[in-house]
Structure formats: structure tokens, C-alpha cells
């Protein structure tokens, strides 16, 4: 098995699907000869030509709307947002057109909108956002947020083959940081299945995206303190794998939920509410959340580090829950 970064695994999934299915094509800003701002599609135009790797004007509504129309006409578009922050300019297309088409027309809209998200790079308020909760709140959209290269490949393949619109969030801080063995060729990870990335017995950390790696770091440190911490990577927000999460909570009886997105009305609130609703009797401590401070993502490293959830904050919260 080749070793790949998250970014290479995403490229690999796109290339694999484009070779397998002629209907799959890409559109986005600077994605052709230039290979995209992060080089996810480097070399693609050489292999697939400019008809299937389409450079677009800076028109997010046209990119996403165009993808929807192409999907209605039988193709499978994968649209790249240069930064997921700019998805706001195509918001109408996602929440009003894509998300309602199955419901109103019974027609599939097999599009994927993917791109880099997340903070930690001093990129400021407009290149650092975690925007997944907006879309999780819109029925009709699937929301995927991988933490590992192999999952990224398998989930992106599943997203491309899904008949529904799928938003695929790629934390840019993980693009070149995480490396692991990734299956060559076919690799399908179904949407809606969480994964226990570290088993434990005393506490469950429920998380996704970049915070999975911070949770693993925290779990290792707590092991030195004698606590056995389980880390559950939900991998997809919609559909949400309640079974795996509740099963974990029922075994450990303590839960901390963490994500990089801001706290209020974040997806952690949804997980907490459902856990309280369905697994209340199993809990030995209050459900706690660790998320970003409710503010735009600031630029100066001193501010950004203070605003984003850190290993220290997560560690502290886990200790409190363990000691409760």
C-alpha cells in the first residue's frame, strides 16, 4: 500500500473516479493547468483534458449552480471551492436548489462540493472558517469531514457515487501533515459510519476533522495519567452515525465533544442534545463541549491560538469529566 498525505489521497480518489466513470468531471477556479491553489488537481488536465477539468471564472454561484445543472443532465460534477470560505457566494445554490431537488422533484443531484477549511495558519477571518454546521442544518445536504488520508479517499469516492449533494470538507492543516497507508484503486468508505480511532473504557471523545488528531494526543497524555480514553471520529456529520456514538457513550459513561468550529449552534450541540436524549441514563458526568470561542477566526497567531480549541483546553475538560 502506498503512503499518502491527505491531499494525495484526495487527488487519488478524484483520479480513480474520473478513470472509472466518464461522467465525473471537475470544475473550479485555477484547477486546470495550474492544478488548483493547493495542487489537488495537479496533472489532471494532462490526463483528462480541459473538457473534464474546467477552469471557471470567480463565480461560486455559477460553479455550484453549474454543477447542479450538469448533474440534472446526467453528469457527476465535483466542484472545488478554492477555499471553503467562499462557498458563501454559492450558498443559495446549495441550500435552495441542491438541497430541495430530491424532495421536490425526486431527481438526483449527484454533486460534490469540496475544498479546504479550517484555521491554525494565521490566514485570518476569510480563509480559516469551519463552515460545516451551516450545511448540516440544511436537510438535503450530506456533510463529510475526514481526518485521515485513507478515510478521505474512501469517503470522497463514496461522496462522488452518492446520488445526493455532498459537501466535503478538507482541513488544510491536515493536507500535508498526516500521512498513512492508503489502499490503491478501489476503496469505499460508506457515508454515515463513524470510526473508533482509539478504543478506551473511561471516557469518549466524539469529534471530527483536525480535532481527531488533537483528541488522540490528549488520549495518549491521559493514558499516562491512568485514564483509558476512546476517540470516535464521526467522519460524516450528515448522515450522523448515532449507533456508534451512543454505543461508545454507553460503554464509557462519560463524553466530551470537540470540534474546531465555533461553539454556539455548532454540530457538537446536536451531538450533545441527542446523547442527552437517548443515552442519559448511561451518563456519569455532564456532557461537555470543547470548541472555538464564538468569534471570527483572527489572524495574529496569539489571537488565533487563543480562539481555537487547543489540546490543553481539551485535556483540561477531559480531566474534569473524568473526575466528576
Amino acid at each position, binding site marked *: 500500500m502506498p503512503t499518502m498525505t491527505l491531499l494525495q489521497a484526495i487527488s487519488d480518489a478524484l483520479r480513480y473516479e474520473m478513470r472509472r466513470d466518464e461522467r465525473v468531471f471537475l470544475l473550479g477556479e485555477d484547477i486546470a493547468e495550474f492544478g488548483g491553489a493547493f495542487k489537488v488537481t495537479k496533472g489532471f488536465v494532462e490526463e483528462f483534458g480541459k473538457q473534464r477539468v474546467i477552469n471557471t471564472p470567480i*463565480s461560486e454561484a455559477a460553479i455550484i449552480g453549474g*454543477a447542479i445543472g450538469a*448533474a440534472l443532465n446526467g453528469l457527476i460534477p465535483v466542484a472545488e471551492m478554492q477555499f471553503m470560505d467562499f462557498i458563501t457566494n454559492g450558498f443559495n445554490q446549495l441550500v435552495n*436548489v441542491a438541497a*430541495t431537488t430530491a424532495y*421536490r422533484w425526486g431527481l438526483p443531484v449527484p454533486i460534490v462540493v469540496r475544498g479546504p477549511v479550517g484555521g491554525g495558519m494565521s490566514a485570518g477571518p476569510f480563509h480559516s472558517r469551519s463552515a460545516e454546521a451551516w450545511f448540516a442544518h440544511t436537510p438535503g445536504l450530506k456533510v463529510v469531514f475526514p481526518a485521515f488520508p485513507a478515510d478521505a479517499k474512501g469517503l470522497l469516492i463514496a461522496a462522488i457515487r452518492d446520488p445526493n449533494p455532498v459537501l466535503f470538507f478538507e482541513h488544510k492543516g491536515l493536507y500535508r501533515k498526516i500521512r498513512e497507508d492508503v489502499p490503491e484503486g478501489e476503496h469505499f468508505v460508506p457515508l454515515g459510519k463513524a470510526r473508533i480511532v482509539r478504543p478506551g473504557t473511561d471516557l469518549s471523545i466524539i469529534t471530527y476533522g483536525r480535532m481527531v488528531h488533537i483528541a488522540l494526543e490528549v488520549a495518549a497524555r491521559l493514558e499516562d495519567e491512568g485514564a483509558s480514553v476512546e476517540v470516535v471520529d464521526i467522519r460524516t456529520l450528515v448522515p450522523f452515525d448515532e449507533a456508534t456514538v451512543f454505543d461508545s457513550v454507553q460503554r464509557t459513561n462519560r463524553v466530551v465533544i470537540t470540534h474546531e468550529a465555533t461553539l454556539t449552534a455548532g454540530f457538537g450541540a446536536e451531538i450533545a442534545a441527542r446523547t442527552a436524549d437517548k443515552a442519559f441514563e448511561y451518563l456519569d458526568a455532564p456532557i461537555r463541549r470543547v470548541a472555538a470561542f464564538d468569534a471570527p477566526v483572527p489572524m495574529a497567531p496569539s489571537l488565533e491560538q487563543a480562539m481555537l480549541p487547543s489540546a490543553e483546553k481539551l485535556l483540561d475538560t477531559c480531566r474534569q469529566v473524568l473526575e466528576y
Partner: protein
Amino acid sequence: MADVVETAEIPAITPTKLLNDQQRVALLRWMLHARIFDEVTIRLYRQGKMFGSVFAQIGHEAISVGSAAVLQPEDAIFPMHRDLGAHFVRGVPLRTIALNHLARQGSMMRGTDGTGHYADPQRKLYGNISHLGAMIPVAVGYALAAQLKGEPIVVLNYIGEGGAQTGEFHEGLNFAAVRKAPFVLIIENNQYAYSTPTTEEYACKKLSDRAIGYGIPGETIDGTDVERVYEATFYAVERARNGEGPSLIEAICMRMRGHAEHDNASYVPRELLEYWKKRDPLLRYQRFLVENGILSEAEIQQMRHEIEAETVRVLDEVLQLPFPPAEEAFKNVFL
């Protein structure tokens, strides 16, 4: 509604060589269908028997009918909210239209939405959503896919002059132009966006002038002359089919009713309505057909009575139907 009005003030139709008399009769029939659907639903609305809004398209019939009639069955059409005529041209049965409009059991949208918002993929008709402008990029994407697949189809899309002020109008049309997509956009300029007159909507002389900025052909035409609309659309569609890219057509008309039937349009000057009354697309065409011996007044009357009887019957039947069962609300959020 008056029939053929004898008045010299009605401007003549500019006949096109592209149409034969049989096609002309078909155009009239579709325009009558659209007009009568409005008349009947307005009546029902006043009687409190309608469901939802009635966005009458009286004054627009020549645009939707004259342009949709150009298309081949494999071409796709993305109408706006005053294009019922195009639905008839595409062959959607009256009953299907009524079921969708009234969100009754048996509607293609299962009661999830109403009016002309439905899609009929067999007839390659994709309705609008309420958000004005939203369907322009979608229609462009549909055209783009045809281009990628090498299918020689054309996509015809419509927008009001109000909707033409959205960002999606610009993004969609520019993208279509850059890709030379087989796409034709018709702006139905009916002088008002709800209560807002065109002087408060845009500052250019003609909306078709925008075409220059996109590097595509643009033309402003009389949208109440069905043959003029047919001809302009014909050449734009031919151009798109030949791979020469999109065109923009601005068709001028008047919204002869309120924005919807709740609105008495008191903000529209009476003289303006008087002016446009003489340019009623249906009356103009009826007169043309009679003067040229294509149909007699009696034949037109007969056609009108048949369509009216059918429309009343179908709407009455559909209004008796129940709304879809509640469990439909929980289906198809995802496929």
C-alpha cells in the same frame, strides 16, 4: 374578455417566413391555453377557491409560447414564473399543470411545492424556484453538460427584468459565454418588478446592451408579437446549436395584472395599461390570423370555448382532490 378588437391602433404583427399556417394556429392555441388558465384561476382566486398565489402571465403569452415553440423535444427549457405558455408548448397536460399548481394528490411534487415549480424530465422542462436568478447558473450547467457529452441540444431559460438584477444572472451568463454553452436567455421585461418600475431597477437603456459586456449577441424585441419572438429565438437557438454560444434576448411586454392576484397594482399608471392593452399579444395575433384568412373569428371563438370548458373542468376536478397524505413530508429528503 373581448375578442378581435377592430382598432387601427393595434400594431401589426411582423410575420416570419419560418412559420406555416398550421404552426400559427398551434401558437394561438397555446397562447389561449395560457390566457384562459389565468382567467379561470383568477376567478377561482376571487371566489376564495384557489390554493396558493396566482401569478398571472397575461401580457407575457407571446414570449413564452413564441420562444418555446422553437425548441426540439430533446432541447431543455427552464421557465420563470410567468411562462405557463411554455408548459403547454412542451405538451404538459392541463391536469398535470393543475395538480402541480394546486399541490394536490398525484402532483409530481407530492405536495412539497406548488405553482409552476415542478420538473418534468421527460419533457425536459425544469421549473423555477422562488429565488429569482437561481436557475440561471443551473440552466447553464445543464447546457454545459450537453456540450461535454457532445449532444446538440439547446437550453432556453427565462428571467424577469427584476431577476436580471441578481448576481446569479451575471455569473450564469458570463460562465455560459466563456464556455460558449448552447444557452439562450430571454429577459421578459414587463416594466415592473412587484411595485418597482424599471427606472429603479437598472440604469442602462436596454438590458440587451449587457450582451456586449459578455461578448455575446443581444437583441431587444417586441415581446407582444409572437412571430417576432419566434424569429428572434429561432436564430439564437440555431446559433447555440451550431456551437457559437449563448445569446441574450430582451422581450418587452407589460404585466397586465398585479404582481400576483392579491395586488391591485394601484402603482401602475392607468395610461400605461391603456397603451399596452392595445398591444395585447393574444388580440394582436388573433387579428393577424383573421386578416390573413388563417382562422375565422368563429373558429377562434370555438377554440376559446373548448379550451375554457376544458380548463374549468380540469381545475374543478383537481380542486376536489385531497392534498397528498402527510407521510409524504418525510420522504425523499435524500435519495
